[in-house]
């Protein structure tokens, strides 16, 4: 309750800032228009590129604020062309910025002024009316209340408080609306967004195919060197045992016992291989229990909080499982931690995995291949990995994968 009130107050303060910034944007917009007007006389050509850059800086800041204040992500346009004014004039993002610079003060500025007007008028009613009504005679109106007596003064006081409260309460919603308005004006054009998406898909698809091919090669090699080789040995030993069965039964018996041992080893190889491809518990029970099984094999104290409403798509489960496995291995090898907390949550079509250890910190994605590999694997699902590991710890890795549930809860996930 208290934190919601503080958040609303912060939002109201941000509305105030946004209204002032809207005025600053007008100044930049005017500068750009001036440069455009001066194009026919030549000076404009020299003035336009820096003015356009200034405008882009302002719009970039507005995008940043929308993300920070209200979590509204505005996709940035392509960077401004570095060349002469002609290149700037041909840039779609520049014209969008300019449109925003002229509309923002009128629409955006007015929008964020609404809660401010309520708050300021409310504060005036609550703080000033009780003291001035005696001096002002019979024509002193506060909103729709004619303030000329103690009861009407109290009514004005209450009304003022109500206005203030309404303004503060409305501030977060208005701020969000303002960000969305900014997104409508400032987003990169659809074609740019699609081109980016295609680029990304192209890159992650290549990565996924490379990873898969490497994985298949590894499996092939493991089978070739492991189970396959043992089965060949088994066949040869059996062959010798058959030959010796009549002439030397004790040796034949030894050989057969050897066959039993080799077959057990071949099975063990296959088990290890299958575990690396798709762990049985993951197939049986899903991500929650598979991570619990991982924790049981880990010698650190692992605490798990799994809040998954059902099974996730199998490829996502698999990627998430191997990611957690990698994080645990890192914690064991590098962090010197004694405890690890793992939280699995699914909310709003997003799987979020948080792995925190109480180790010495200082982990870095760019060093070592483990984290890079996990990030690449998550990339295929449009997933993200964020690492927070200050020296001295603790280390927190947050992974997010957008996905739909594949089935409602059937067993204890």
């Amino acid at each position: 309750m208290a934190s919601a009130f503080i958040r609303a107050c912060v939002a109201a303060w941000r509305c105030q800032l946004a209204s002032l910034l809207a005025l600053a944007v007008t100044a930049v917009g005017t500068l750009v228009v001036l440069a455009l007007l001066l194009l026919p006389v030549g000076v404009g050509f020299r003035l336009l590129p820096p003015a356009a850059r200034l405008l882009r800086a302002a719009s970039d800041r507005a995008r940043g604020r929308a993300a920070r204040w209200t979590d509204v992500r505005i996709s940035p346009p392509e960077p401004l062309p570095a060349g002469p004014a002609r290149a700037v004039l041909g840039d779609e993002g520049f014209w969008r910025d300019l449109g925003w610079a002229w509309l923002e003060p009128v629409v955006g500025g007015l929008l964020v002024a609404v809660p401010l007007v309520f708050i300021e008028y409310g504060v005036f009613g609550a703080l000033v009316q009780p003291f001035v009504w005696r001096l002002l005679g019979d024509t002193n109106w506060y909103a729709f209340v004619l303030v000329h007596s103690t009861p009407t003064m109290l009514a004005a006081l209450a009304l003022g408080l109500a206005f203030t409260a309404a303004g503060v309460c409305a501030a977060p919603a208005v701020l969000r609306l303002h960000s969305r308005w900014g997104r409508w004006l400032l987003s990169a054009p659809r074609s740019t967004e699609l081109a980016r998406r295609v680029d990304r898909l192209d890159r992650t698809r290549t990565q996924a195919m490379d990873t898969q091919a490497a994985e298949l090669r590894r499996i092939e090699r493991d089978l070739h060197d492991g189970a396959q080789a043992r089965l060949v040995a088994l066949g040869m030993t059996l062959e010798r045992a058959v030959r010796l069965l009549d002439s030397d039964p004790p040796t034949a018996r030894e050989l057969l016992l050897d066959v039993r041992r080799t077959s057990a080893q071949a099975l063990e190889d296959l088990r290890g291989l299958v575990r690396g491809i798709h762990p049985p518990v993951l197939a049986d029970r899903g991500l929650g229990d598979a991570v619990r099984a991982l924790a049981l094999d880990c010698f650190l104290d692992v605490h798990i909080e799994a809040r998954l409403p059902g099974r996730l798509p199998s490829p996502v489960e698999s990627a998430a499982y191997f990611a957690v496995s990698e994080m645990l291995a890192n914690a064991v090898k590098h962090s010197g931690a004694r405890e690890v907390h793992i939280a699995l949550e699914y909310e709003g079509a997003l799987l979020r995995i948080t792995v925190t250890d109480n180790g010495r910190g200082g982990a870095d994605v760019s060093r070592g291949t483990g984290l890079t590999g996990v990030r690449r694997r998550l990339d295929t699902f449009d997933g993200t990995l964020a690492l927070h590991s200050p020296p001295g710890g603790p280390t927190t890795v947050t992974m997010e994968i957008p996905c739909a549930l594949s089935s409602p809860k059937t067993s204890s996930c």
Partner: protein
Amino acid sequence: MRVVLAEDLFLLRDGLIRTLEEHGCEVVAAVDNGPALLRALLDEEPDVAVVDVRLPPTFTDEGLQAALEARRKRPGLPVLVLSQYVEQLYANELLATGDGAVGYLLKDRVTDTAQFVDAVRRVAAGGTVMDPQVIARLLSRGEARGTVGSLTARERDVLELMAEGRSNAAVAATLHFSESAVAKHTASIFAKLGIAPSADDNRRVLAVLAYLKR
């Protein structure tokens, strides 16, 4: 001894029936899926059930779920679970009730028929049988955590076999000790780990497993 058997692969089911019957067990029901297994367990009231973890129709842990469900309805119903893989998580779930009469073995162990039938009998008699792989993983985790560090190598061998559910006599035979030497080692292990000694074999196994799971 009346046995209910659940295994979906025909060849293995057939082999298991033959092995069990050769050793004087009566297979009263041999089923190949989870729902049929649960029905057989509740209707036939067998002396012991031998169950494959992965069964149709879902080909997940259907067999284990049916066994756990049957044990919820008939506490103490002896169940020996077989699997291509051993998972600590599943072992814990089987041990959770704390009253024994459970076994959890890798499928490969059936190739040693004498030991396998012995395990079936021990479970039927209310004992606990854990696969050496489960115990080896528990012990190596215990070593890394420093919970079994004070034991000598010999004592660790005894602990390993004890945790698998072997009796003193069986431990003695495997390690080529006398039974009194095993008893001495056992007493020393319990003192070092701070586990209350128990004359009852099954209580003793469960206490050791509980200690190793910490």
